């Protein structure tokens, strides 16, 4: 019995291959987008972990120079002699690979994942240790031992050899071993130029990259939801078409529970195949996008991730499980209906449409409740969880409200129509809504997600560009080694009346955190280029006259100090905050004060970094090298950095755009599948109209028009929803998750373009069903009127 029954159930898919394709492809697309994004995330996280395991980053406290990036070897020797257990590290880049030189004799046990292997491999030798991909990048001229456990983009060697490769005789930083002896002299006494960075601070890169991963995950989840709509829609229609078969099977003696079990097995079996395809597709998507993501993360946050993808259980199992759970959720309501369906119930498809229409009211009530809930959630609730609940209420509420809103609009259009064909057209469109509602909801989610995410990313880009303008306004940036060089540079530039912007900096501990203090020479450049999140009038005037400071958003949020509040900088000095500046991607709190105020606090510190305003950057650069004696490597062309940073950001756009196109493609596929599946049910509805004088071609064009009109209504609804989504992401989720807020910018042209894409997608989706309708044989249409039907 089971075999015969299963064979009968499966025969439905053989006879309806398009529906089978819709089911498997819908699930495959949903799983693909989710697992693809998860694959990227897990690869990146694995790379961070490998880097941490390789370098001991995040495990030990580190000593860095307060100014510049050089620690003289003498300082290291002095510290060791004074009893400080430190291990030297030299770090630099060669062929886009980060070279790390370590001293195995003094290194901490957790410093290198290789341990004894490292020792036996290269202690005192001219050999590097790297994974295969990195070894290839370094080229064949070096002696490299391949070790898969070394993080991608990193090569480790003996400190002497790495110094030789990098052409350096100084150190980058020192690792503080965990167990220090008691009674050692204070760090400030032995090495006043060094600062301690706790292991905790080093994890900030991971926190920053989390922002990027969260955005990707949100996108993946939205795409998964869109895919699930296809699955839900296909399952609904497949069950509808099989109601007759189910009734027959039961009347022929198949017990209900057997039928339920067999249907569940059948659908889950197909779902496993779909999810399996999805994982393969997800792998391909991730492999395609990963190089861009890797470049983005490296450029934005300095985080190294591998450019190659591994098949990790963490993402493919989650993709498979999510696919199956999603299917089970979509399946459960249909199974419930079968279980509750009387054996002698009518099997006419229309019954389903009527039943679905009756659910409209329930959906509308649920939509009203969910949308009303968003108001108190947005106004009164705090926390990341509340943010996500708000997001969920907004999206689900809007999706549920869509059919009712569309029905209302169509009723209005019908009321204002006189021509009988159009009156029929609007009424017929309204009648199609139950069958199309899931596909329309999927399109709504896809378009609004695109509007929301692209608004967020574009706002991020505008803010980022403005931030770059602000921070990279001086054409040249010079970093000197000593106070003498500092004075020489100022004298040289002063004599030529060139605007110079010295930057004094030091680290202090205040407000229970490490804060970077900056002393700046307030001038026109600051006034013209710095954009504040909040400010008092004439903020820079107050800073220039030593009467106020500017703080970055990170400090403002952590210390809850805003414009007008006093910052206790030392026991004797408290200044009000004149402005709060957005400082994107920087985890550290900052206070910016005037040069004079800074020098009053730290007279021993000389400016070692300078911004220089000039129209002839190349010429001035040569003069500085020749006449002041500053090394070429200490002068940075900021325009080039800006171009590089923008290029990095463009890569982020490639990732976002690719995901945008994929989501819209999935939604368009959902419409296509719904229209195709409904096509057979449509014949009895269209045959009478055809008989009354409308040609098949005319009916086909009307089908296309219907699809475009419905897509237009969806787009009109998606626009405010997408903007609301962007608002929640930028002003609630981002702040709750990362502590900084991005201003929202609107991009009307982009939205119109997206609307155009949605209409084209809907038109293309309706083309095949319309062509099928146009080519429907007259005998099929006439068959509708035959008595035996």
């Amino acid at each position: 019995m089971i075999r015969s029954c299963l064979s009968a159930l499966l025969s439905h898919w053989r006879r309806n291959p398009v529906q089978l394709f819709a089911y498997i492809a819908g699930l495959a697309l949903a799983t693909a987008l989710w697992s693809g994004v998860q694959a990227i995330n897990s690869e990146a996280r694995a790379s961070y972990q490998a880097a941490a395991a390789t370098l001991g980053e995040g495990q030990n406290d580190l000593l860095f120079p307060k100014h510049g990036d050089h620690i003289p070897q003498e300082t290291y020797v002095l510290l060791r002699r004074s009893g400080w257990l430190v291990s030297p590290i030299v770090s630099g880049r060669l062929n886009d690979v980060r070279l790390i030189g370590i001293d195995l004799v003094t290194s901490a046990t957790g410093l290198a994942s290789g341990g004894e292997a490292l020792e036996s491999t290269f202690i005192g030798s001219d050999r590097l240790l790297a994974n295969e991909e990195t070894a290839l990048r370094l080229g064949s001229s070096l002696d490299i031992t391949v070790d898969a456990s070394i993080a991608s983009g990193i090569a480790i060697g003996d400190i002497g050899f790495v110094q030789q490769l990098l052409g350096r005789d100084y150190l980058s930083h020192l690792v503080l071993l965990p167990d220090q002896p008691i009674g050692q002299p204070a760090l400030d006494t032995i090495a006043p130029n060094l600062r301690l960075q706790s292991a905790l601070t080093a994890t900030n890169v991971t926190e920053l990259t989390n922002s990027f991963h969260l955005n990707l995950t949100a996108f993946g989840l939205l795409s998964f939801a869109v895919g699930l709509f296809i699955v839900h829609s296909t399952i609904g229609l497949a069950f509808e078409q099989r109601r007759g078969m189910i009734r027959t099977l039961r009347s022929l003696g198949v017990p209900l529970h057997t039928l339920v079990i067999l249907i569940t097995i059948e659908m889950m079996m197909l779902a496993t195949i779909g999810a399996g395809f999805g994982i393969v597709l997800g792998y391909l998507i991730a492999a395609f996008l990963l190089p861009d993501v890797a470049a983005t993360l490296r450029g934005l946050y300095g985080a190294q991730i591998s450019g190659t993808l591994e098949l990790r259980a963490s993402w493919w199992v989650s993709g498979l499980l999510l696919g199956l759970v999603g299917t089970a959720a979509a399946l459960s309501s249909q199974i419930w209906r079968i279980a509750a369906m009387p054996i002698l119930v009518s099997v006419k498809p229309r019954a389903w449409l009527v039943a679905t229409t009756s659910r409209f009211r329930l959906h509308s009530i649920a939509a009203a409740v969910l949308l009303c809930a968003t108001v108190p959630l947005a106004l009164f609730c705090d926390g990341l969880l509340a943010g996500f609940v708000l997001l969920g209420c907004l999206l689900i509420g809007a999706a549920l409200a869509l059919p009712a809103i569309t029905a209302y609009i169509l009723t209005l259009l019908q009321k204002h129509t006189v021509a009988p064909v159009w009156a029929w057209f609007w009424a017929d469109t309204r009648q199609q809504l139950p069958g199309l509602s899931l596909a329309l909801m999927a399109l709504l989610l896809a378009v609004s997600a695109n509007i929301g995410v692209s608004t967020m990313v574009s706002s991020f880009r505008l803010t980022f560009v403005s931030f770059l303008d602000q921070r990279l306004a001086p054409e040249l940036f010079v970093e000197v080694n000593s106070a003498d060089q500092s004075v020489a540079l100022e004298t040289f530039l002063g004599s030529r009346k060139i605007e110079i912007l010295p930057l004094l900096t030091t680290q202090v501990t205040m407000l229970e955190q490490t804060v970077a203090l900056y002393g700046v020479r307030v001038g026109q450049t600051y006034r013209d280029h710095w954009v504040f999140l909040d400010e008092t009038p004439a903020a820079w005037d107050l800073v220039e006259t030593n009467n106020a400071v500017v703080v970055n958003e990170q400090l403002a949020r952590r210390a809850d100090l805003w414009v007008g509040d006093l910052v206790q900088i030392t026991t004797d000095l408290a200044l009000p905050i004149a402005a709060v500046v957005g400082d994107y991607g920087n985890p550290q709190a900052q206070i910016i004060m005037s040069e004079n105020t800074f020098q009053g606090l730290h007279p021993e510190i000389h400016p070692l970094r300078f911004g220089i305003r000039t129209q002839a950057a190349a010429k001035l650069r040569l003069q500085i090298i020749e006449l002041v004696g500053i090394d070429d490597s200490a002068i940075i062309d900021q325009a080039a950095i800006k171009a590089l940073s923008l290029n990095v950001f463009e890569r982020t756009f490639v990732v976002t755009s690719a995901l945008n196109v994929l989501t819209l493609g999935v939604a368009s596929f959902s419409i296509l599948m719904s229209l195709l599946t409904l096509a057979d049910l449509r014949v009895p509805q269209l045959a009478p109209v055809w008989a009354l004088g409308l040609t098949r071609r005319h009916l086909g064009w009307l089908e296309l028009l219907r699809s475009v009109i419905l897509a237009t209504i969806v787009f009109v609804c998606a626009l405010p929803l997408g903007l609301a989504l962007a608002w929640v992401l930028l002003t609630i989720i981002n702040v709750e998750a990362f502590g900084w807020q991005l201003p929202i910018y609107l991009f009307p042209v982009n939205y119109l373009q997206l609307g155009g894409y949605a209409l084209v997608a809907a038109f293309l989706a309706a083309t095949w069903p319309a062509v099928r309708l146009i080519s429907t044989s007259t005998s099929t249409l006439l068959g509708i009127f035959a008595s035996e039907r």
Partner: protein
Amino acid sequence: MLLRFEEVRKSFRDGDSVVPVLQDVSFELEAGQTLALRGESGSGKSTLLHIAGALEAPDAGHVWVSGQDLTRLNDNRRARLRRTEIALVFQQFNLIPSLTVEANISFHAALSGHVDLLHIEQISAALGLLGQMKKYPEALSGGQQQRVAIARAIAAKPKLMLADEPTGNLDEATAQDVLEQMLKLVVQMGTALMVVTHSPNIAARMDRQLHLRSGQLA
């Protein structure tokens, strides 16, 4: 006794009111016997047939099929009875659209695990379906689809065959032809047959006739 109704009652709710459909219906049908059930529309004929086919349960009274009291059977046991003892032929054919004619005919027999290929071939030949075996139901005319439904019922070798207006959708000549074939095969197998019909001609071909008026046997 193959089928026995004893004081069977059935009613349906229509809003707040209760509409009686069958009232104290009692009759018997022996193996190999044929019975026509007649009556006006709404007189309860189909409901009686559904109860006899273990598709619905009566509100009161007892129904025995092959010695088993349907009112004492749970859903699973009733399903087993439909699978092994009873075959139904509906006015709307109720074929499985995704299976070929051949698969449809053998389907009920396959469910009970007793497919007799020779028997199926004989039935198909007798009903003129041999040329249609690889086609799907949608490619057949109404009369042909009804023959497939009858062939499916007979192929399962049931003890009791129940037919609800089996020729109601067919023209006179086709109806006559289908009925002839059905009766011939039923008599050959010794199956008891109950047919719900409006047609006096069909009723006249049966061993016995029962008339239902407002849910009661006249």
